[in-house]
């Protein structure tokens, strides 16, 4: 069974203090690993899709990386508006399968 574990559960940073969020996964053949951001009362908002080990993608202060067992979401010099829950999800490479398996998320708080 596909599984995603995110750590830490919660993280508080000072504005400008860089850090990384971790997503460890087990999946029967990875088709894609997804990062989403979720604000309170809203649905998940798509950030990145990664497909193979060694791949990296960047968007503003965020950079996502992927290995064969885990993914990291690096946040550089964060601002208060980066506060949100960050979700990781995997999709297995199976015919007809598009199910995403999510982790429980990391709740990130950036203190001004």
């Amino acid at each position, binding site marked *: 069974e596909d599984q995603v574990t995110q750590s830490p559960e919660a993280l508080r940073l000072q504005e400008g203090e860089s850090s990384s969020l971790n997503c460890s996964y087990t999946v029967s053949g990875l088709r*894609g690993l997804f990062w989403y951001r979720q604000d309170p009362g809203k649905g998940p908002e*798509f950030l990145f899709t990664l497909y193979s080990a060694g791949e990296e993608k960047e968007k503003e202060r965020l950079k996502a990386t992927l290995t064969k067992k885990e993914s990291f979401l690096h946040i550089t010099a964060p601002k208060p508006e980066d506060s949100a829950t960050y979700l990781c999800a995997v999709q297995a490479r199976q015919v007809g399968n598009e199910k995403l398996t999510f982790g429980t998320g990391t709740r990130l708080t950036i203190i001004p």
Partner: protein
Amino acid sequence: EAGVTQFPSHSVIEKGQTVTLRCDPISGHDNLYWYRRVMGKEIKFLLHFVKESKQDESGMPNNRFLAERTGGTYSTLKVQPAELEDSGVYFCASSQDFRVGSNYGYTFGSGTRLTVV
């Protein structure tokens, strides 16, 4: 473009009653998905439509849940009769055909918060 729209945004019903949730996907998206997040747990897959056909309903918890997508446009998820453990946030998502290698993800709606009392 308009996003994925879900309504109602909140629903409070009594145990044993029936509730119907609705999802309007992004226009032109053939793929529509339902997910659910119960308190303290991760978001879990319920089912996947391709146009009006159920592609994968492996996540549907039991036969009290019925999903339909008439005409391949909007979808409804009916819970009948509702139980206490059905409380949670129900998300709908839609997508075009997924292509490996693209920076493409699934677009989610804001969800319906269902409370069964």
